[in-house]
């Protein structure tokens, strides 16, 4: 049996601010080489703090040559606070890469990527790879305010076309990401990552236009490795609705098959 290939002691090479969010860079050569867009890593905290469970994060960028993996996150509670305050050159216990990645488009045409808040970070590596393969990419990034649109200064380099929406109009168009999805006809696929209500709306809209839709979901996750069955998403299958694991069958699901609730 192959053992111990997924759990790594990795060094933090730096933590930087990115708008309202943090970007953590990890020296993780194995993961940088093997991780696929849409996969995630599960970061261990210090259990002696009383916060036991690992925290899962989508992968933002991987740099195989430099052996670096970056994740983006929001400081939302004591776990993310603990991670955000680790000094550079200290080590983290990271399990990954985990989960089922985004599938490549099966037909010609541009890829439309829809990101809500820091969920947009999960789309950058995919855009990089699809563009390297010669495909055009459009990013529709939405958030409450300009500060909360992930990587707003980097988007024009990372995608061929960028549309920003904000709830308060502080950047781009005032409104929701779905308001900006008026021009998706002819797209090969829609990729989305963000809050579940946004994913539901994006999947419905893509479905109504007959466009394949891949959504990266998020549910409370205890183990991240397929054994606790807490992180399930209801998915329609040929065998009826099944509760599938966000960490294993997901986090990327076919948006038209998810039973949105």
């Amino acid at each position, binding site marked *: *049996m*192959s*053992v*111990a*290939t*997924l*759990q790594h002691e990795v060094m933090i090479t730096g933590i930087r601010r990115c708008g309202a969010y943090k970007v953590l860079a990890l020296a993780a050569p194995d993961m940088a080489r093997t991780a696929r867009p849409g996969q995630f890593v599960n970061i*261990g905290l210090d*259990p002696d703090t*009383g*916060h*036991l*469970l*690992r925290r899962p994060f989508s992968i933002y960028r991987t740099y195989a040559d430099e052996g670096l993996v970056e994740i983006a996150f929001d400081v939302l509670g004591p*776990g993310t606070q603990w991670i955000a305050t680790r000094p550079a050159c200290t080590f983290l*216990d990271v*399990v990954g890469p985990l989960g089922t990645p985004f599938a490549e488009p099966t037909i010609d045409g541009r890829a439309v990527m829809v990101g809500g808040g820091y969920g947009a970070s999960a789309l950058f590596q995919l855009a990089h790879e699809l563009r390297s393969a010669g495909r055009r990419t459009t990013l529709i990034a939405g958030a409450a305010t300009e500060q909360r649109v992930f990587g707003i200064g980097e988007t024009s380099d990372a995608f061929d076309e960028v549309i920003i929406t904000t709830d308060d109009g502080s950047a781009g168009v005032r409104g929701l990401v779905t308001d900006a999805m008026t021009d998706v006809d002819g797209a090969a696929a829609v990729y989305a990552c963000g809050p579940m209500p946004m994913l539901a709306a994006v999947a419905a809209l893509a479905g109504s236009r007959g466009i394949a839709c891949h959504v990266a979901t998020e*549910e*409370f*996750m*205890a*183990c*991240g*490795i*397929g*054994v*606790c*069955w*807490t*992180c*399930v*998403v*209801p998915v329609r299958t040929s065998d009826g*609705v*099944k*509760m599938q694991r966000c960490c*294993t069958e997901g986090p990327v699901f076919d948006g038209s098959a998810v039973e949105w*609730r």
Partner: protein
Amino acid sequence: MNDLSVNLAGVRLGNPVVTASGCFGSGKEMSRFVDLQRLGAVVCKTVTLKPRLGIDPPRGAETPSGMLNAIGLQNPGVDAFVRNDLAWLADRNVKAIASIGGQSVEEYVACAEALNGAPALVAMELNLSCPNLEDRGFMFALSAERTAEVTRAVKEVASVPILPKLSPDVTNIVEIADAAAGAGADGLALINTTLGMAIDTVTFKPKLSTATGGLSGPAIKPIAVRCVFQVARALPHLPLIGMGGVRTGDDALELILAGATAVAVGTATFIDPHATEHVIQRLEEILRERNIASIDQLRGQVKIEG
């Protein structure tokens, strides 16, 4: 040479460390991390006679030094489990302890019959104490009579030792344990999660879709030690698998000192996929450091004055 092997209700285990049901699947996913043959046995996730979808998310929440869960016994049913999971474990020469659940005595009996002759199987737990079934008031482990009834019925058909798994959420766990032993239990598994609840103070909603759920992790370890201690005192010859909050080898030793023959590692696997291996290593180390020939010599050795 220090001997970690134990005899659990007639089953020889290479060491006392097993997995807690529901925290290790049936081993397939965990084989990416752990050499399963190094474990005393793999205690598999509970199966029922028919497949169960489980409950809606959210199914979990972190709590201080612990977590709540409400999965609702999602499982593929006993037949698929035998065909896919036990066969897979048998191919890898891993000892398996199945865990069966149900809503009626008949369902437990049918499940036990379906397991007869299954590969890899060395014992079965009867999960009488899942806190997340539709009718919680019906939980077998809350009643000595019903615990005895289901234990007696399964004992009649089971081809391997049976180990009812009890709930700590009772007035007197010794009374329930005694009823199980009297009805033919070959040993007991102590303890299942204890019922808890957490509320989101922003949304005012419970953190679990079912409102209440099972609390696990280091937060419940003292309850587990207490239950094992009380039952071991009352029924010193009944083999016990102790569990509840075991994260380190010293935690495991605590349960052994309280009277457990074997120890299950549960939630700790979520924190560290290698937790079971670390517990085994630490127990080896403890025997070596203290120059103790066999782990069995430590069972029930808590020193009570007077």
